[in-house]
C-alpha cells in the first residue's frame, strides 16, 4: 500500500498482544487478594412483587459467612443508567424482573456463599405484571412504575408505561403522502439480543486502611462507574479509585455500573477484599441485553423511486428499567437517505422483564433491519432495482441529517460501487440462491477526551489516557502519537491506567475512542512538537520559524545538517530551563462525521428445511484513513459476524407470562462459530474525515447493522418470501415458504390518535 504516512496505514500487532497470547493479561476475575471473600447474589423469582419478608438471619449465622446485605443496607437513593432515575441499585420493596438481585452474601469461599444464598428466606406478594410492550402501552395494562411521574428526569406524560419518547419531524408529511405515486407500509420485529461478551461481569472491591474504596473492574467507563458508585454508596468520588482491568469484551454491556456496588458495600462492611464473578446464567438473567423492537415504517414514493415521505413508529421494549438511556434509533428511521418529509417516533416502554442494556449502537441494527428491508420492498413494488433505488436516494454531501448537522464529504457512493462490483450485482443465480444488499450509517463518536504524553530522557514517550481499550484502541492511539511525533511505534509506551492516574475521559463506546480520544492524542503530540521546537531553537541559537521538523528530527531549514534528533532533544529537556516535556490536550466534542458502509450477502436457502446458509458476505466501509488496517479489518470482521448471528440464530427469548429469560446459556443462545461462516471479504474506502485524527473515521459500529436486512433481502431474492421478523431461523423461513408468515399486528392509528394526528 502506498501511503503518505510513516506509521499509519500499516499493520501493527496490538501493544497488548504478548500479554494476551501468553495468558498474562489480567482481567478482573484474575485478581486474587489476600483474605479475599467470595460474593454471591440471590435473584428474585418474581417479575413484579412486593418483598413482604426477607430474612437473612440463617444465612448470616452460617459458618464462613462474613456479611449479608439487602436493598435497605444501601442509602435510600434512586439511581439511573439512562435519562431517568428509575431504580434502586438493589430493590428495597418491589422487584421488577425475574433475576433481579435482592441480596448479596460475602463468605470465605464461593461454595459457602452459595450455601448461604440457599438459606435466605423470601416471601413475595405478587403484583399485576406486563411482559409484552405493545400490551403495556394499552389502557388497562399493569403499571410497571407507579411513581414514574415523580422520577428525576421524567419529562412528559404519554402513557403509564412509556419511559421516553423521542421524535423528529421535517416538512409536511401528510401532504407528501397524498402527493406520492405509491405508499409502501411494513411492520418489522427484531428479537432480544445478548451482547455475548466472553468475560462475565467481574469485580474485586477492597478498602484501603485509610478508608478509600478500590474497585478492580471489568468496565468500559471507569470514571462513569466511579460517579455512579459514589451516588449509590453516598461517598465522595474522591474516596473511590477504579482500576480498569483488561476488558474481556463489553460491546456496551459494561458502559455503566452493573454489580460493582455489591462487593463494594460488602468490602466496606467487612474490611476484607470481596470478589464477585457472575456465572454465565447470571450474565444472561441479571445484566441488561437488548430487548425486542417493533418497527412500523411507511414510505411515500414517486414512480421513479424518489422517496418523498417517511413515517416510522418504533417501540423499544426497555424492560424493568431504562438501563441504556433513550434508544439511539430515532435518527436512523430514514437510514442513509435524503427524505424531505418525515415523522419519526421512538417509544421506550417499560415491561416486567430484565432491563434493557446497550449493545454496539443500541437500536440502530433494529432500525437498519427495518429500513433496509423496506427499501427492497419499495424497489419491488415499483419494479426498480434495489441497488439503483439506494443510489437514487442516498445522502449526498451538503444534505442535512436528522440531527440537523450538514453531511460533510464522505465515501457513501464509493462503498455502494465497491460491493456492486465485488458481488457482481445484478446476477442470475440458480434456484434457492440469492443476493441482498444493505446500506448502513453511523456517526463518529464524540464526548470528553483527554491525553497526556510525557517525554522520557531516551527519546521514548509514555502515553496516558483514561480510556479503556475495547477494540485495539491503545495500539491505534500509540500509532497516532508516533505519527505526530515522527518516531517509530516501538518508542511509544501505553500506560495502564486507573482513575487516580489518568485524566478524566468519556466511556469507551459508540465508536468514539480513535476518532475523539485519538484527536486528543494527536493534539497532545503536537503540543510536544511545539515545545521541542522551542527547545531546539534555544539550543541551535536560531528563531523557531527557521526550523523544520521531519522524521523525529528538528533541523535548520537553511542548513539541514544542523539539527537535533528527537532523542537528543528529549535528553536535553531534562535539564533545560523548561524542564522535562509533557504534552497535553483536552476536548469536549467533535464535529459530526458520518460513517457509511454498504454490504452484500449471497445466500443459499434449503427449501426443505428453511435453513439459510451465508455463502459470501461483502462489506465496504468508508473508514477514512485506516490508522491500523489490521485492527480496522478486525473490527469489520467481528461486527459482521455479530450481525450474522443476529440475522440467523441469536434469539434471547422471554417467558410470555413471567418475562424470565428462557435461554440463559451459550448452549441455547446461539452465537456463530467458526464453521458457520463464510470467508471475510472487506473493501476499505478512504475518504479522509475532515476532522478525525489524520483523517480517520469511526469504525466499529456499522459492520453489525447490515446483515439482518442484507440476508433477509437475499432470502427474498432466493425463494421469493419476505420474512419481517428476526432471526431468520429455519423454522421461520420454512413457515414463510409454506405461506404461514402472518403480518405483525401493530395499531399505528392508536399512536397517531394519541398525538392528535388524523387518520388517512
Amino acid at each position: 500500500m502506498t501511503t503518505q504516512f510513516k506509521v499509519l496505514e500499516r499493520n501493527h500487532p496490538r501493544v497488548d498482544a504478548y500479554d494476551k497470547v501468553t495468558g498474562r493479561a489480567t482481567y478482573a476475575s484474575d485478581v486474587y487478594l489476600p483474605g479475599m471473600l467470595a460474593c454471591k447474589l440471590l435473584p428474585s423469582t418474581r417479575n413484579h412483587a412486593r418483598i413482604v419478608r426477607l430474612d437473612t438471619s440463617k444465612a448470616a449465622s452460617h459458618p464462613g459467612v462474613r456479611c449479608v446485605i439487602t436493598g435497605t443496607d444501601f442509602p435510600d437513593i434512586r439511581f439511573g443508567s439512562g435519562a431517568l432515575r428509575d431504580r434502586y441499585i438493589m430493590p428495597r420493596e418491589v422487584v421488577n424482573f425475574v433475576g433481579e438481585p435482592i441480596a448479596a452474601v460475602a463468605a470465605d469461599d464461593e461454595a459457602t456463599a452459595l450455601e448461604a444464598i440457599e438459606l435466605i428466606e423470601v416471601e413475595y406478594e405478587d403484583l399485576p405484571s406486563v411482559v409484552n410492550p405493545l400490551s403495556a402501552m394499552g389502557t388497562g395494562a399493569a403499571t410497571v412504575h407507579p411513581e414514574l411521574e415523580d422520577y428525576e428526569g421524567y419529562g412528559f406524560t404519554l402513557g403509564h408505561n412509556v419511559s421516553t419518547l423521542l421524535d423528529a419531524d421535517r416538512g409536511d408529511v401528510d401532504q407528501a403522502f397524498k402527493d406520492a405515486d405509491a405508499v409502501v407500509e411494513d411492520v418489522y420485529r427484531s428479537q432480544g439480543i445478548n451482547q455475548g461478551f466472553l468475560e462475565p461481569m467481574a469485580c474485586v472491591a477492597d478498602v484501603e486502611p485509610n478508608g478509600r474504596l478500590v474497585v478492580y473492574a471489568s468496565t468500559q467507563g471507569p470514571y462513569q462507574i466511579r460517579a455512579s458508585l459514589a451516588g449509590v454508596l453516598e461517598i465522595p468520588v474522591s474516596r473511590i479509585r477504579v482500576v480498569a482491568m483488561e476488558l474481556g469484551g463489553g460491546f456496551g454491556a459494561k458502559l455503566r455500573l452493573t454489580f460493582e456496588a455489591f462487593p463494594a458495600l460488602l468490602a466496606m462492611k467487612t474490611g476484607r477484599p470481596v470478589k464477585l464473578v457472575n456465572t454465565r446464567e447470571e450474565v444472561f438473567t441479571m445484566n441488561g441485553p437488548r430487548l425486542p423492537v417493533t418497527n412500523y415504517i411507511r414510505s411515500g414514493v414517486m414512480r421513479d423511486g424518489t422517496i418523498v415521505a417517511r413515517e416510522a413508529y418504533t417501540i423499544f421494549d426497555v424492560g424493568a428499567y431504562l438501563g441504556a438511556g433513550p434508544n439511539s434509533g430515532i435518527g436512523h428511521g430514514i437510514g442513509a437517505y435524503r427524505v424531505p418529509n418525515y415523522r419519526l417516533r421512538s417509544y421506550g416502554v417499560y415491561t416486567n422483564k430484565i432491563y434493557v442494556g446497550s449493545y454496539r449502537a443500541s437500536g440502530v441494527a433494529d432500525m437498519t433491519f427495518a429500513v433496509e428491508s423496506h427499501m427492497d420492498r419499495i424497489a419491488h413494488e415499483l419494479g426498480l432495482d434495489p441497488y439503483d433505488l439506494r443510489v437514487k436516494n442516498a445522502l449526498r454531501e451538503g444534505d442535512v441529517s436528522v440531527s440537523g448537522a450538514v453531511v460533510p464529504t464522505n465515501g457513501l457512493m464509493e462503498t455502494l460501487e465497491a460491493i456492486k462490483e465485488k458481488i457482481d450485482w445484478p446476477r442470475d443465480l440458480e434456484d434457492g440462491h440469492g443476493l441482498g444488499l444493505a446500506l448502513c450509517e453511523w456517526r463518529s463518536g464524540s464526548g470528553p477526551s483527554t491525553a497526556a504524553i510525557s517525554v522520557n530522557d531516551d527519546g521514548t514517550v509514555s502515553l496516558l489516557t483514561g480510556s479503556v481499550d475495547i477494540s485495539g484502541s491503545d495500539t491505534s492511539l500509540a500509532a497516532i502519537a508516533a505519527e505526530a511525533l515522527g518516531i517509530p511505534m516501538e518508542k511509544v509506551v501505553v500506560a495502564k491506567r486507573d482513575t487516580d492516574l489518568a485524566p478524566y475521559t468519556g466511556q469507551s463506546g459508540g465508536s468514539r475512542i480513535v476518532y475523539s480520544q485519538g484527536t486528543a492524542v494527536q493534539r497532545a503530540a503536537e503540543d510536544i512538537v511545539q515545545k521541542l521546537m522551542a527547545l531546539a531553537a534555544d539550543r541551535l541559537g536560531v528563531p523557531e520559524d527557521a526550523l523544520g521538523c521531519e522524521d523525529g528530527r528538528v533541523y535548520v531549514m537553511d542548513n539541514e545538517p544542523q539539527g537535533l534528533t528527537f532523542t537528543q532533544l528529549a535528553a536535553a529537556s531534562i535539564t533545560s530551563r523548561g524542564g522535562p516535556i509533557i504534552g497535553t490536550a483536552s476536548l469536549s466534542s467533535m464535529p459530526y462525521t458520518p460513517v457509511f458502509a454498504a454490504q452484500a450477502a449471497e445466500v443459499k436457502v434449503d427449501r426443505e428445511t428453511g435453513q439459510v446458509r451465508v455463502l459470501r458476505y461483502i462489506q465496504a466501509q468508508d473508514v477514512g484513513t485506516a490508522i491500523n488496517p489490521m485492527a480496522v479489518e478486525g473490527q469489520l470482521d467481528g461486527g459482521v459476524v455479530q450481525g450474522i448471528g443476529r440475522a440467523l440464530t441469536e434469539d434471547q427469548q422471554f417467558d410470555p407470562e413471567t418475562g424470565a429469560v428462557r435461554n440463559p446459556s451459550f448452549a441455547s443462545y446461539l452465537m456463530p462459530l467458526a464453521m458457520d461462516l463464510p470467508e471475510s471479504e472487506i473493501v476499505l474506502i478512504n475518504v479522509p474525515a475532515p476532522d478525525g485524527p489524520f483523517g480517520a473515521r469511526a469504525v466499529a459500529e456499522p459492520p453489525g447493522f447490515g446483515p439482518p436486512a442484507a440476508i433477509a433481502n437475499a432470502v427474498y431474492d432466493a425463494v421469493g418470501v419476505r420474512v419481517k421478523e428476526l432471526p431468520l431461523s429455519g423454522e421461520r423461513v420454512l413457515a414463510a415458504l409454506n405461506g404461514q408468515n402472518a403480518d405483525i399486528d401493530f395499531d399505528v392509528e392508536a399512536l397517531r390518535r394519541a398525538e392528535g394526528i388524523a387518520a388517512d
Partner: protein
Amino acid sequence: MKQPLTLTINGESRLMLVEPYYSLLDCLRDEAQLTGAKKGCDEGDCGACTVLMDGKPVTSCLILAHSAHDCDITTIEGLATVDGLSPVQKAFVEHGGLQCGFCIPGLIMSATGFLQANPDPTEEDVRFAIGGNLCRCTGYARVVEAVMAAAQEMREGR
C-alpha cells in the same frame, strides 16, 4: 475436605490439596495460580478454559480436578519458552488473531492440540477444530488465518 492431588502442569510435577468438587479449571486458577485458562461459562460451551490433558484439548471446566490425577496438563502459560512464543502464539500476534483476548488462551490451546495431530489442515479443518471455541470479537477470520500460518511455519520448521 481437601484431598491431595498430583498433577504435572507445564512439565512440573505439583502436589496440591484440592476440594473433591473442584473442576480442573478451578484447581488451575484458584490453587495453582495459573489464571490464563478462563472461565467464560463453566458449562463447557465457550471453550475459554481449554487446556491440553495428555496432549489433547479438553474443556477444563467439565473435568473434575481429581479425575486428572497423574495427568500431564499443559496450559497457555506453558507454551512460551525463554526463547520466545510458540508458533501458534506468534501467528496470533502477527495476524491480529486476537482482540479482547479472553477467549484466546482457549483458542490457542485448541489450535495447538489440533496442529500437533493434524500438521497439514485445510481451512475448513481449522474452522471445525476451533468449533468449540466461542469468540465474539474477531469473527474468527484472522484467527483462522493465524492457525493456517502457524501450521505452515511448523511444517517448514521441521
